[in-house]
């Protein structure tokens, strides 16, 4: 009993302490998966947000006020996300939410966002078509990510038949159903698409089917982490050598997989090797701020960094912290960051420059081609 009271006292003390040191700052809520499946990438997202806030605060803040972060763990799932959103919106009363989350967590949080009419910038790539008047997205959707890889396989590798493998969840299914449509539109043929439950790691029967199908190329979209890694390892162990595009792998994971990842094609809106002054400055600032603790910036953390700047631009253009006015501006303002110029003007989504990369033997990703200003297509026609 008394332990519980102490905990309560502790947490209420923390709640009181937060606003005490900064006089009336603008608070940015970050619900993020510190535990659960997203906890691998969450620290890099938090770091990116911290850098953006520091940079803005040292230059005088926004409308003369400092920015402050409120971070809440959503446990990468629906129940945790509800807790995190409730806490940020109704207890901490944040001014904006900027976060990278699983689709389940985002969906679980949206009702609370809509109830409080708070601006929400979603910074994770996802399967697309999630719409709310209060939500903006500055990361890619399938319509932007898939075409570079498919085009590459059909033109450079002369692939006609494709095999697709995924995990059985929204992102996996959403990506591959778009991919299938796109391949067929371009005159290719999908000779098989197979899914494994989200926590499944034994791909043997699927790989046997893939080999029997005689497909020219392989495209996969699995859940991040273990399923992705096990699939790649088992593909290599089974001697599969056809062109292999992985829609769910990031640079860091590819590096960790070692030799097995060599030759994989990936498509992303951000890779560390982008040759622009903004990216170089960003990487240098990150390295200077976090030193040895630095988590490698990636396709999920950089949109978080840019979203903070996009919010700043919208507030300044609105000239006030009125949520409705800010929401009206969020789709109009632009920011030139590590990924280039980003504007969330396409039905609350953004046109992005996409990079097609291939994993090299040393684990680095070599950019094979870039595709400027790829349109997200009709994501939310009603907005």
């Amino acid at each position, binding site marked *: 009993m008394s332990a519980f009271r102490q905990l309560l006292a502790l947490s209420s003390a923390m709640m009181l302490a937060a606003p005490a040191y900064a006089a009336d700052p603008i608070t940015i809520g970050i619900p993020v998966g510190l535990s659960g499946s997203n906890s691998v990438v969450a620290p890099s997202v938090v770091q990116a947000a911290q850098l953006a806030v520091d940079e803005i605060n040292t230059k005088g803040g926004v409308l003369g006020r400092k920015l402050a972060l409120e971070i809440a763990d959503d446990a990468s799932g629906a129940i945790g996300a509800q807790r995190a959103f409730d806490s940020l919106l109704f207890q901490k009363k944040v001014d904006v939410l900027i976060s990278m989350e699983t689709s389940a967590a985002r969906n679980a949080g949206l009702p609370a966002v809509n109830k409080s009419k708070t601006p929400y910038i979603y910074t994770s790539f996802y399967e697309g078509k999630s719409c709310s008047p209060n939500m903006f997205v500055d990361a890619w959707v399938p319509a932007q990510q898939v075409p570079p890889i498919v085009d590459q396989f059909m033109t450079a590798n002369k692939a006609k038949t494709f095999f697709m493998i995924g995990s059985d969840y929204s992102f996996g299914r959403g990506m591959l159903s778009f991919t299938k449509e796109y391949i067929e539109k371009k005159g290719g043929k999908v000779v098989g698409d197979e899914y494994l439950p989200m926590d499944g790691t034994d791909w043997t029967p699927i790989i046997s089917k893939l080999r029997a199908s005689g497909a020219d190329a392989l495209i996969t979209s699995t859940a991040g982490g273990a399923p992705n890694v096990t699939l790649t390892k088992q593909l290599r162990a089974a001697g599969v050598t056809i062109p292999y595009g992985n829609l769910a792998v990031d640079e860091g994971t590819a590096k*960790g997989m070692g030799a097995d990842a060599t030759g994989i094609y990936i498509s992303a809106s951000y890779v560390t090797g982008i040759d622009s002054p903004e990216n170089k400055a960003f990487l240098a600032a990150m390295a200077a701020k976090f030193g040895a603790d630095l988590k490698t910036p990636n396709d999920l953390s950089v949109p978080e960094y840019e979203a903070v700047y996009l919010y700043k631009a919208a507030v300044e253009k609105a000239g006030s912290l009125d949520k409705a006015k800010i929401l009206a501006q969020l789709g109009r303002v632009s920011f030139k960051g590590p990924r280039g110029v980003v504007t969330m003007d396409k039905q609350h989504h953004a046109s992005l420059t996409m990079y097609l990369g291939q994993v090299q033997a040393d684990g680095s990703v070599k950019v094979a081609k870039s595709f400027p200003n790829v349109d997200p297509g009709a994501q939310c026609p009603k907005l």
Partner: protein
Amino acid sequence: MNGAAVLTLGLDIVTTAAILFTVATGLLIIFGVMKIVNFAHGAFITLGAYAGLVASELGLSPWLGLPLAFLAGAACGALVERCVVRPLYGRPLDAILATWGLGIIIGELLTLVFGREVQFVGSPLSGTVDVLGEAYSVYRLFLVVAALIVGGGFAWLLGATRLGLATRAVIMNEDLARGLGINAGWVRFITFSLGSGLAGLAGALITPLSSVDPNMGVPWLLNAFMLVMVSGASLGALLAASVLLGGAQVVISSLASPILGGLTIVVLAALLLRVRPKGFAR
């Protein structure tokens, strides 16, 4: 279906059965002797995998990771038997709960030490080998050998040693065994350590096919648990169950859908137990 496809299917069945058998043996021996289900089995598998990871990061040979994983599992199992499991003999349902709680704790501790990210262990054998003209993963074939060694080693231990004799006596009739001067507490201690060690070994054996993360053991736990339920305390029955249910999983995954395949073992085992409560035993 052509000949090559049938051959591949056959190899998939044999290797899948071997993996399932290896993973479930440790659980079986504990269930057989102590009549409790060790729900920390998944966590011990994970522990073994991390032991393999540590070995490979220390630059040791991947083969050395195997005994290391066994030792890590056995040591942890020994500790757990003394502290947690001992008061729970005769309370099998509570033992399930306590060991499940242990699994949570081990998982969280591993997370605190190693982080949540997925990590990689190199495979001691890589590439493919020709089996009757079909290329097949060498490591999966090696796992069949490993399963045979584990199973054979166990059969020898039970059949040809004093410890095995005492263990079989405890399995058949614990009161009588105690009456004959067999130290049942000691047999249990050894059994639990051995079972946990085997879980660790299985963890290290499966990682070259998969990856290492703090929750990797949990999906294995359920299948292993169901296989043990239908096998009773018999190693032979476990072998039969692994081949039949594992085979059914591969066939359904290959011919119907891998999603149904993922549910095959648990659903078939539950139905089998409903119709024939003794399962594959006798």
